């Protein structure tokens, strides 16, 4: 059974005159124990999608979906309170810039103790404090921080970026989530630290069978760590499939351009030659093109592209394009 099944999710920004369609009919499914990458450039609505799944968007945003199921439960039919309790129990999220997300005025120990799930504790109230501390230390051990004494006493600014991110992951693990949404967990981090964080997430995935939705703006960084990848562009669904399918034979011109533009994926091209790239940049929300939003930048665009294409499925490799590159391979 699918853990999360979202079909045709749209997110509208309600402004003065007319609503802006920020995310336009995106589908996403997560299986148990799967690591899925959600890739898109900045402004492509991937963080919005994550926030919509968590249900933390405020009144300005209107979320519609044809299907929004969490382990067979239809979330759209539940009241906000019920929905929140379902989501909060099983889904956790970590953010980019961990230092900015932790409270700078309290120690790591206090913040962790706050996050600990206290309903499992047994015994009298005077024993609870002790149990809480133990649980916090256990959480730190789980994310690979051995020196827990020092870490619990320190403030966020005294730790490095990677350590702060580990603490964030520890907090997310407190309620043993089934799905962890990692919103650019390694942005602005050094490559050696990035490796540490990704390895930690991968080991959590393997040991605890936790599904991970890994959000990133860079395709080349996540390919090593994901089973499946969903690509978005400017709020529209582009392509989804296994990592090999997406990376080795992309069907959509946009994904093709992403793979071609990465110097890392193209080790064979001569040094200092020109890289393949799409002209222009991602459109802003006020001036979105009609139909397929890649249209003005797309090398294969034709007249039919003013209508948004339907999603086609080739053996689990979904692509949303009128002129897919399927026949090129």
């Amino acid at each position, binding site marked *: 059974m699918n853990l999360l099944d979202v079909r045709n999710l749209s997110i509208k920004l309600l402004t003065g005159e007319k609503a802006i369609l920020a995310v336009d009919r995106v589908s996403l499914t997560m299986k148990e124990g799967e690591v899925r990458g959600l890739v898109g*450039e*900045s402004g492509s609505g991937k963080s919005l999608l994550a926030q919509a799944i968590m249900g933390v968007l405020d009144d300005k945003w209107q979320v519609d979906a044809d299907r929004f199921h969490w382990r067979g439960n239809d979330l759209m039919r539940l009241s906000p309170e019920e929905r929140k309790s379902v989501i909060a129990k099983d889904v956790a999220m970590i953010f980019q810039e961990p230092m900015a997300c932790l409270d700078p005025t309290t120690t790591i120990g206090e913040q962790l103790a706050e996050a600990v799930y206290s309903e499992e504790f047994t015994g009298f109230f005077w024993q609870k404090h002790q149990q809480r501390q133990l649980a916090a230390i256990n959480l730190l051990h789980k994310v690979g921080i051995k020196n827990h004494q020092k870490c619990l006493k320190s403030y966020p600014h005294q730790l490095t970026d990677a350590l702060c991110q580990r603490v964030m992951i520890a907090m997310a693990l407190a309620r043993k989530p089934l799905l962890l949404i990692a919103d650019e967990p390694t942005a*602005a981090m*050094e*490559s*050696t630290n*990035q*490796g540490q964080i990704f390895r930690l997430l991968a080991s959590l995935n393997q040991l605890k069978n936790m599904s991970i939705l890994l959000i990133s*703006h*860079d*395709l*080349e960084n996540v*390919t*090593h760590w994901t089973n499946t990848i969903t690509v978005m562009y400017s709020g529209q669904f582009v392509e989804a499939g296994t990592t090999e399918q997406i*990376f080795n034979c992309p069907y959509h011109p946009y994904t093709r*351009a*992403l793979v071609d*533009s*990465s*110097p*890392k*994926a193209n*080790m064979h*091209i001569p*040094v*200092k030659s*020109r*890289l*393949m*790239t*799409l002209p222009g*940049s*991602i459109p*802003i929300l006020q001036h979105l093109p009609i139909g397929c939003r890649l249209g003005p930048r797309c090398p294969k665009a034709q007249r039919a592209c003013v209508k948004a294409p339907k999603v086609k499925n080739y053996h689990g490799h979904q692509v949303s394009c009128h002129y897919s590159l399927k026949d090129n391979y």
Partner: protein
Amino acid sequence: MTSLLEVSNLSKSYHVGGFPFKRRVINALEPISFEVPAHKTLAIVGETGSGKSTLAKLLVGAEKPTTGKVKLNGQTLNHGNFKQRCQHIRMIFQDSGTTLNPSLTISQLLDEPLLLNTDLDENQRALLIRETLQKVGLLADHMNFYPHMLSGGQKQRVSLARAIILKPQVIILDEALAALDPSLRSQMINLLLDLQQQMGLAFVLISHNLGIIRHFTDYMMVMSKGQVVEMGNTLDILKKPQHKYTKKLIMSQHFQLLNR
């Protein structure tokens, strides 16, 4: 061929601690020497606190070196003589959003270095600004825009325009490509390569992304704790890393490619 930029014995140390008995000296940068010829690019790699940003600041003249000299075309650059240095060595920073003054239009932003460093009249300056904007792929209409009206990639282009408007010989890119989206980044790399061919620029690129470094640079310098641990041809170093730190760095990024 003589080298364009020649650095000999350059070092920087800071004094910390107020009381005399607590005073310590921190060597941010141990003495280093290197050369960069015209048309070539030097990459600097290292972890945080390895002194790569200090080196960039010393080259551009924002900090006073403790020892050593920076020579450009055989001519020594003195600290404090900004008129001489600003014309020839320019710098682009990581976050283009915060390095552009939000209260000035693009033409005013680009006018400032011209006002300070050249004696062109108003018409000539406007013409030069127009030309430079075209060179980096922007339109003359963008002259009257404010920075917040431009997208991230366009802002980075404006910073590049500001860097090349004085026709410099060396440009220092301090993580200038890190924060950009992949498609904008490859656009920017193409642009920089074109400019290098046309104007014979030398680049000093500070970066973490080994893919970009392999594609874009000729020489490479690996730094750790203020010291240069490895220096040489980029391809040679990436193929046969000698030092432990370089190996670790390559493992953390390349190993993903080898498995694929």
